[in-house]
């Protein structure tokens, strides 16, 4: 068990997913892999059948609705003075309760080196919230930059398909290096350096307090992602994602993979922001019949939407046992 969590963290920090050798597979997994190899024609027919009955975009609609609702709630709370959710994403008060973004709080604590009660309460509340809801769930369900980047990504994928541009990848480990460097810079310089360039903070404040020059930086990032490297900021730079990712390691909410249902078409990996977490869906890779997707997963549900056979599903650990 502990091994599974360690592997999930290692991959999140930038390691390549470990290829489990067949002898380590469970008997159940071995059997499923065996039958998949033997019934090729039936298997192809199943694929087509499943594709024909696919429902589209269920989780995308839900997720965008939630994301837009949360961000607009910040905006209207201020503009209409209804005071439900005051502040911006870095720190806010929901009906009087302090909520503080974990990475912003970390930066402030490291730079300032003093923690007052409100900061502690707000950070604690948000910590528990995302511990339950899955850590990086913040990224795909709340972060307004994610929303912009997601749409820029569509353009990028389109341009790549048309062969107008080509995608450039970076080593994923660089995000871990950034996380450490930004933490060190905050602690050493006494300035919250990352907050200066954080597009999450910039977009969130722009939505509440009006646009400014800072949005120019966000536009540059989006252009970089459209024309040069797919989802570069979220994949290779953003320490917020890593902070929440660590919180989500032990979260009960995650995407669950069922080997028996999988047709190994790889659609899920194509739409995924963090495809390394879906390494187990590659044919012949899954060591167990059922697997939890790792901590770096943003729980965005794109893979679930695109999977025609229900091999990927949201799961709340423990809930199945209780029910």
């Amino acid at each position, binding site marked *: 068990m502990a091994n599974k969590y360690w592997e999930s963290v290692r991959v999140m920090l930038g390691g390549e997913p470990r290829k489990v050798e067949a002898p380590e597979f469970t008997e159940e997994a071995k059997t499923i892999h065996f039958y998949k190899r033997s019934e090729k024609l039936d298997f192809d027919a199943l694929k087509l059948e499943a594709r024909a009955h696919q429902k589209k975009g269920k989780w995308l609609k839900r997720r965008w609705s939630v994301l837009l609702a949360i961000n607009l709630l910040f905006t209207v*709370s*201020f503009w209409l003075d209804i005071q439900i959710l*005051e*502040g*911006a994403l*870095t*720190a*806010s*008060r929901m009906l009087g309760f*302090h909520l*503080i*973004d974990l990475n*912003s*709080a970390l930066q*402030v604590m490291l*730079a*300032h*080196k*003093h923690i*007052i009660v*409100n*900061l502690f309460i*707000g950070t604690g509340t948000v910590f528990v919230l995302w511990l339950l809801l899955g850590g990086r769930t913040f990224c795909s369900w709340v972060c307004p930059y994610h929303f912009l980047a997601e749409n820029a990504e569509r353009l990028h994928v389109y341009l790549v398909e048309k062969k107008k541009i080509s995608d*450039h*990848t*970076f*080593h994923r480990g*660089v995000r871990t*290096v*950034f996380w450490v*460097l*930004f933490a060190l*810079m905050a602690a050493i*310089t*006494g*300035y*919250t*350096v*990352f*907050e*200066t*360039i954080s597009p999450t*903070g*910039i977009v969130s*404040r722009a939505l*509440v*307090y009006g646009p*400014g*020059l*800072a949005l*120019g*930086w966000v536009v540059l990032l989006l252009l970089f992602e459209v024309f040069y490297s797919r989802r*570069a900021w979220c994949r*290779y*730079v953003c320490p917020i994602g890593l902070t929440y990712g660590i919180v989500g390691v032990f979260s009960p909410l995650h995407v669950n993979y069922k080997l028996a249902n999988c047709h190994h078409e790889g659609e899920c990996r194509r739409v995924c922001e963090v495809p390394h977490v879906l390494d187990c869906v590659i044919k012949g890779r899954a060591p167990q019949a059922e697997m939890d997707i790792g901590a770096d997963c943003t729980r965005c549900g794109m893979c679930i939407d695109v999977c025609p056979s229900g091999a990927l599903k949201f799961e709340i650990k423990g809930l199945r046992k209780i029910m």
Partner: protein
Amino acid sequence: MTTEKKPAAPTGVVNKRKLEERRKFLRTMILGAAVLGISTLGYIPVASAWRVRMRPPGALEEPDFLASCIKCGQCVQVCPVQAIKLDDIDHGFGVGMPYIDSRKQACDFSCDAVQCILACPTGSLVYKKPVYMPSRSEMKVANPPILLAKEKDPEPTLNLKERTGLARLVRPDACLAVQGKGFKGQARGADFKGRMRFIEVDRWKPIRLSDHPFDLELCDLCVRTCPIKGAISLQPVLDKDGKKHMTPTVHEPCLGCGVCEMICPVEPTAIVVDARKGWSA
């Protein structure tokens, strides 16, 4: 087995892959350097202090303020006159941090309780600095400041221990009082959007300055609108020709709220607030 029959080593493939690996590594290094370079650019405007910002009441000393502010803008949201604005990215590390431009909209303590301090989640704005926080003696006010608007209340003082700046008559020659002139009309013209509260109108509802015209024989706007008791007064002085005239004089209770700077009807203003400047006798 002869050497010729050995399958040719796929050197081309290996090299290509290695090359791509090397390219990727190089790209990653460049990305790292670029992001770090750009993020540290934010230090330039701060180090050069190209704009000395006046922070909201109760702000920590500037380095501590820059370290502790989480850039959420909750102070902006609670201010009844919306005196507090957030800085843009041209202020580097100060992006998203609150400041007050007194000439446009000063803090007139309309809220009575310095609500921005109450709203601050990180302790960047505080009623009283914790002992371990550095502070300067000239920023401390000698006595609890009395807010004229609640002078008759059981608790007339404002919960503030330090000033944010100090008012100063920068252009005495332009000052209407010094010239012995009166003032009639809207202090800052009809288009001015700044607001403040007037006790005689409505204690709880700030109104636009343009909705509150004055008719004064001798201009004393800075004195009559000052929200703090004993912070400013008109004092008689003799000029070099031996002629007596009145001049606005700032006293120790001044908190640097900036109302005098906002209301001064001459352009540019005759009186300003020096941000983060303390009192010296």
